[in-house]
C-alpha cells in the first residue's frame, strides 16, 4: 500500500462510519417518533388520567438512567429505546387531551408539532452542513439544565405561572442548543453509538414539543 492509498483510505473509512451512524440514528429516531405518536394517540383514545404523564416520565427516566447504558451496545438497546419513547409518548395522552378540550386546542397542538419539526430539522441540518464542532457548549448546556431543574423544583411548590413559562422558554433555548451539540457530536466522533445518539435527540424533540405546547397554550389566551 503506498502513501496515497493510506491517506485516502483512512478518512474514507471514518466518513463511512460517520455516515452510517447518522443514517442509523435518523432511521431509529424516525421509527421511535412514529411509535411515540401512536402511543400518544392510544393514550388520548383511552382517556388516561392526569397522573399517567408523571408515572410514564419517571418510568422512562429510570430506564434511561439505569437500563439503557447497560443495553445500548447490544440489540436489546433497540427494545429499551422503543420502551422509553413509547412510555414518553403514552404519557403525553393526558396533556394532549387537556389541550384538545380548549377552543384553539387542535390548532395549538398542530402548531407545536409542526414548529418542533421545523426547529429540529433546521438546527440539525445546520449542524450537519456547517460540520462545526458544538461540543464547547456542553458545560453551558448541562449547567443550564441544572438551573432549569432547580427552577422547576421550586415551582412545584410555588406554582407561579410566569416562572413555569420562563422555564419553558429556557428549555426551548437549551433543547435547541442540545440539538446542535448532539448532532455535531455525531459528526465529529464524540458519539459513536446510534442508540445513545437517538436517545439524546429524541429527548430534545420531546422537551421542545412539551415546552412549545405550554408557551403556545399560555400565550394563545386559551390556557
Amino acid at each position, binding site marked *: 500500500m503506498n502513501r496515497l492509498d493510506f491517506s485516502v483510505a483512512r478518512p474514507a473509512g471514518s466518513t463511512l462510519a460517520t455516515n452510517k451512524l447518522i443514517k442509523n440514528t435518523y432511521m431509529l429516531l424516525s421509527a421511535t417518533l412514529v411509535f411515540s405518536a401512536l402511543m400518544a394517540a392510544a393514550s388520548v383514545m383511552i382517556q388516561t388520567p392526569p397522573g399517567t404523564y408523571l408515572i410514564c416520565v*419517571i418510568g422512562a427516566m429510570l430506564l434511561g438512567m439505569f437500563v439503557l447504558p447497560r443495553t445500548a451496545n447490544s440489540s436489546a438497546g433497540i427494545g429499551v429505546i422503543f420502551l422509553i419513547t413509547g412510555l414518553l409518548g403514552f404519557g403525553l395522552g393526558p396533556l394532549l387531551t387537556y389541550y384538545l378540550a380548549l377552543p384553539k386546542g387542535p390548532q395549538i397542538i398542530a*402548531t407545536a408539532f409542526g414548529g418542533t419539526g421545523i426547529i429540529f430539522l433546521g438546527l440539525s441540518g445546520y449542524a450537519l452542513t456547517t460540520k462545526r464542532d458544538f461540543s464547547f457548549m456542553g458545560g453551558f448546556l448541562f449547567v443550564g439544565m*441544572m438551573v432549569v431543574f432547580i427552577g422547576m423544583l421550586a415551582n412545584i411548590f410555588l406554582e407561579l405561572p410566569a416562572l413555569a413559562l420562563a422555564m419553558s422558554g429556557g428549555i426551548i433555548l437549551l433543547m435547541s442548543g442540545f440539538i446542535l451539540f448532539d448532532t455535531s457530536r455525531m459528526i465529529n466522533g464524540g458519539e459513536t453509538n446510534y442508540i445513545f445518539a437517538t436517545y439524546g435527540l429524541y429527548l430534545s424533540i420531546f422537551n421542545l414539543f412539551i415546552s412549545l405546547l405550554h408557551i403556545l397554550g399560555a400565550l394563545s*389566551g386559551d390556557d
Partner: protein
Amino acid sequence: MELWMKIAAAIAIGMMLVFMFPRAKYWLEHGPKAEKGDWQAAILPILAVVGFVILLVMMVR
C-alpha cells in the same frame, strides 16, 4: 396538582439533578473551549429559533 404528584415530581427532578451534576462537572472541566466565532455560530441559529417561536405565538393568537 395533588400532593403525591408534587412529591413524586420533586423526587424525580431531584434524581435528575443528582444524575446531571457529574456530567455538568465533567463538561465544565474537560469540555473543549470555544474558539473564535464558535459562540456566534451557535447563537445565530438559536436566535432564529426565538424569532420562529414568536412567529408561532402570533399565529395562534
